[in-house]
C-alpha cells in the first residue's frame, strides 16, 4: 500500500523569504501523480501544484515549485517570496494512475502547518 509522510508538523517563514516543505512517499508503482494542497483556516482545500511521475521536469506555478526526486521518492514544495496569505496547512497527496473506482483516491500525508511572520 502507498504511504505519504510529512515529517515537519510545523514550519515558520518570514514574509518575502523562501521556505521548503518536505514530503516523502512509498510506492511500488512506476507511474503516479503527486499533489500539494493548501488548507487555510477557512478549511477549503485548494490545489497548489501537480506533478506527474513520468515527467522529469519539476512543476512550477508562479511562486510555488516542487523538487521531485523519483528515485528518492521525495516531493518537496518550495514557496518563494512568502506572503501572509500563504499561511495554511499544506498536505502532500499521492494518487495511483489507474482510472475508476477507489483507486482514484488521494492518499494524504499528515500535513505541515506553515506560519508566515510579518
Amino acid at each position, binding site marked *: 500500500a502507498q504511504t505519504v509522510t510529512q515529517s515537519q508538523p510545523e514550519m515558520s517563514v518570514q514574509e518575502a523569504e523562501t521556505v521548503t516543505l518536505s514530503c516523502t512517499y512509498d510506492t511500488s508503482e512506476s507511474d503516479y*501523480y503527486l*499533489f500539494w*494542497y493548501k488548507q487555510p483556516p*477557512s*478549511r*477549503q*482545500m*485548494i*490545489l497548489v501544484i*501537480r506533478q506527474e511521475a513520468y515527467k522529469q521536469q519539476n512543476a512550477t506555478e508562479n511562486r510555488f515549485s516542487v523538487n521531485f526526486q523519483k528515485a528518492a521518492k521525495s516531493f518537496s514544495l518550495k514557496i518563494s517570496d512568502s506572503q501572509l496569505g500563504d499561511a495554511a496547512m499544506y*498536505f502532500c497527496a499521492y*494518487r495511483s*494512475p489507474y482510472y475508476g*473506482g*477507489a483507486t*482514484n*483516491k*488521494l492518499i*494524504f*500525508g*499528515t*500535513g505541515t502547518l506553515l506560519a508566515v511572520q510579518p
Partner: protein
Amino acid sequence: SAVISQKPSRDICQRGTSLTIQCQVDSQVTMMFWYRQQPGQSLTLIATANQGSEATYESGFVIDKFPISRPNLTFSTLTVSNMSPEDSSIYLCSVEYPGGYNEQFFGPGTRLTVL
C-alpha cells in the same frame, strides 16, 4: 476550476441522530468522493460515490453508517447515521472532471459536532 458547494456548512447534532450532507457541483463530473477529516488530522477517504450504483466504501467504513447517494452527475449526499461524538469531523466532498489532469477539487467542507 470547479464550483462545489456543500450544505450545511456546519451543524451541531445530538448523539443518536443522523445528518445528511449535500454536495452540488456546477457541471457534470466523472467521479465524486467523500472524505473525513477528524480534528487536527489528515483526510481519509470514506467512499467513492458512483452515479446510478452503490458507492464503493473504503476499509473501515460501512454503508449502514455512511449511506451515500448519487442520483446524477452533479449531486451527491452523504448521511452520517446514528451519530456519536467520535463522528465529530469535517466532511468534504471532492470531484474529478472529465478530461482533467487527474486532479481532485474539494468542496468547502461541513463541520460536524456531535454532543
